[in-house]
Structure formats: structure tokens, C-alpha cells
């Protein structure tokens, strides 16, 4: 199999593009895809500093590397989630990447600024992934606001978008469909623009990019993701894709083009500021601060010191 661009021996075949590439041309292809996506979707202006959410996984570290290679001014934001050795290893990989590329990194330890994910889940009877997602969204918004970043970039790839879309459609969750977009313009002055520059690139393409670029990412899966519904949707979509190459891309692209605007039109902006943290929300307290309040209410109090006789 030959590279489509230079006719050298191909290392990767992309059925959805009916193309194969050598290592060098594939790296060029991915970087150019991201550059085009950013330009066509008006995600980031050249002068805007970008806060890049980095987990230590392949997608977010590759995104950070690509944005830096494209000349954007980037700062990484890593949340240490407190999920045992998995989180410790994720933090080590992220810090090592930042040091190797001499890029600035903000690290927030959820156990210090709030509660670790297992505690948030245990005392509120929520699935860990729900508590984790809420905490991540809250601190990404909050830190972007506190540090004055106009843009927050995340490493969601095509498979993430397709799986999320399938999940939202299966339950017809109109409010979630309204917010699923590669560019989410802020609907409050304290929010940053949220962008997903990798949404046209598959999970396989991002893994290959990280491999070719020698990015040392965490291979292990989060222990909480076992049996997660997103993985069920991804598996179903992979089976469809294997029979119909390009199906994932058209599913996502046509949703963004024709259906998402209709859901977004029905959205209203947050009308309050949280009485605990000051971030925009609906009602008096934001969802994350309500979660923390629930933890405080349900966590057993420490034993009182013995009364002197």
C-alpha cells in the first residue's frame, strides 16, 4: 500500500477517506485538518490565548501539541481527579509532556479545591462519570474565567461526538443536543468560547498521530469507565463504520449542519449567578455547588472529642 501524497510505503489506511499515508504525510494531513477546522468553524483567532484541557490521554495531549505546532499561544489545564493510581499516572504523563515541550500547565487537584471524584460519587449516589463530568465542566469554566482565557479547547474526537450524539438521540435530550456543537459561543460574560478542534478526526487517527509523534499518553482506561454507556455506543458505531466507511462522519456533520441549530434556538442563557462560587447558572446555586452541599450534608461528621470529666 502506497502513500496517497508521496507514494512511499503507507503506514496507515483511512477507509473513510479512501486514502493511505506514510508517517510524515499523515502528520501533515492531521495538522492541516485541525488548522482547516479551526479556520472554517472560526474557533480561535490568531491572537487569542487558548486554555487546553488535558487529561493525560492521547487526544488532549495530541491536541495541545498540534495547537502549539500551529503557532497558537497555549496553556494546559489538568484536573487531578483523585481516582487512585489512574489519576496519579494521568497527572504524571501530563506534567512530563508539559515539561518536555516547555509549555505552561495549570494543575488543579480536585481533592484540594473540592472533593475527589470517588467522594463526590459516594455521598451523592451519582454514577462516578456523572460527578466527574460535572466537576470537570465546573472547574474548566471557572479557571478559564479566573485566568482570563477567551477560549477553552478540549480533545473530543469524531468518535466521542458520534457516541455522545447517539446517546442524546436515543433519549431525545433536547437540552443536551442544543449544547452539542464544535463551537459553543459563550452565553454569559464569565464563560469562555468552548471549541473542539479534533471533532473531524477519528479516535484511530488520533491514536496513530500520538504514536507517530512519540507522545507518551496514558494507555489504561479509567476504572470507572467499565460498562459505561458511551463505550456501548462507540462499539455499535464502530460496527456500522466497518460496513459503511464514513458513516460516523456523516452522522455528526449532518447533525451539526441541519439539526443542531434548531435545538440551539430553543436554548436560554443562564439567568442567575451562583450564590456559592459566582459562576452563571439557573436558579440560586450552580449544579456543582449543589453537589458539594449534598456531600457535606451526607458525609458523617467526625467524632467529637471526649468530654473532660
Amino acid at each position: 500500500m502506497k502513500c496517497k501524497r508521496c507514494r512511499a510505503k503507507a503506514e496507515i489506511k483511512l477507509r473513510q477517506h479512501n486514502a493511505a499515508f506514510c508517517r510524515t504525510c499523515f502528520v501533515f494531513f492531521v495538522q492541516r485538518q485541525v488548522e482547516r477546522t479551526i479556520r472554517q468553524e472560526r474557533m480561535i483567532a490568531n491572537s487569542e490565548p487558548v486554555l487546553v484541557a488535558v487529561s493525560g490521554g492521547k487526544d488532549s495531549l495530541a491536541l495541545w501539541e498540534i495547537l502549539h505546532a500551529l503557532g497558537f499561544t497555549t496553556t494546559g489545564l489538568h484536573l487531578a481527579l483523585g481516582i487512585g493510581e489512574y489519576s496519579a499516572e494521568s497527572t504524571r504523563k501530563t506534567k512530563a509532556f508539559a515539561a518536555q515541550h516547555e509549555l505552561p500547565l495549570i494543575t488543579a487537584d480536585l481533592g484540594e479545591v473540592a472533593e475527589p471524584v470517588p467522594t463526590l460519587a459516594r455521598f451523592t449516589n451519582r454514577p462516578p462519570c456523572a460527578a466527574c463530568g460535572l466537576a470537570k465542566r465546573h472547574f474548566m469554566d471557572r479557571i478559564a474565567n479566573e485566568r482570563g482565557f477567551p477560549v477553552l479547547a478540549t480533545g473530543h474526537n469524531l468518535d466521542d461526538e458520534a457516541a455522545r450524539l447517539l446517546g442524546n438521540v436515543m433519549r431525545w435530550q433536547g437540552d443536551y443536543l442544543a449544547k452539542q456543537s464544535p463551537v459553543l459561543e459563550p452565553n454569559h460574560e464569565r464563560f469562555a468560547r468552548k471549541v473542539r478542534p479534533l471533532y473531524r478526526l477519528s479516535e484511530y487517527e488520533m491514536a496513530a498521530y500520538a504514536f507517530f509523534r512519540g507522545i507518551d499518553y496514558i494507555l489504561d482506561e479509567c476504572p470507572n469507565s467499565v460498562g459505561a454507556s458511551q463505550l456501548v455506543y462507540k462499539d455499535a458505531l464502530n460496527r456500522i463504520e466497518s460496513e459503511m466507511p464514513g458513516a460516523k462522519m456523516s452522522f455528526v456533520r449532518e447533525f451539526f449542519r441541519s439539526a443542531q441549530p434548531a435545538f440551539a434556538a430553543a436554548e436560554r442563557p443562564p439567568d442567575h449567578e451562583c450564590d456559592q462560587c459566582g459562576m452563571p447558572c439557573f436558579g440560586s446555586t450552580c449544579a456543582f455547588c449543589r453537589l458539594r452541599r449534598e456531600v457535606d450534608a451526607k458525609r458523617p461528621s467526625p467524632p467529637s472529642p471526649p468530654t473532660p470529666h
Partner: protein
Amino acid sequence: MKIRILPERNELDLPGRQRVADALRQLDMLPGTVMVIRNDELLTDDAWVEENDTIEIRRVMSGG
């Protein structure tokens, strides 16, 4: 051929010389969901793997 599967760190053997696509079919894996790596080289699904080769199969799916 010797196969190491990540992230599970499972190891197994498949007999004979085979194309990557055939090996993946025997393992019930879909192309595009795993990277097949030999000596720091990514293999396309038409590549041959020799009986004495050692390959790494790295799953690419993540999320939760």
C-alpha cells in the same frame, strides 16, 4: 506470531504467517479500533506478519 494486547497486557500466540486483517478477524477485532505495531512501525491491514514476529495490538477506544 506473538501478540501483546494493550491496555489489558494480555499475551497470546497465533499460528503461521498471516495478513493483519486475517489475524484481527481471528481475534474478533475490527480494523480501525486497534493499532497493530511491529518494531515501532504501524501496520496496515494488508501487511504480512511472519510466524516469528512479535506484534503489539493497542486498542484506541477510550471514554466513559
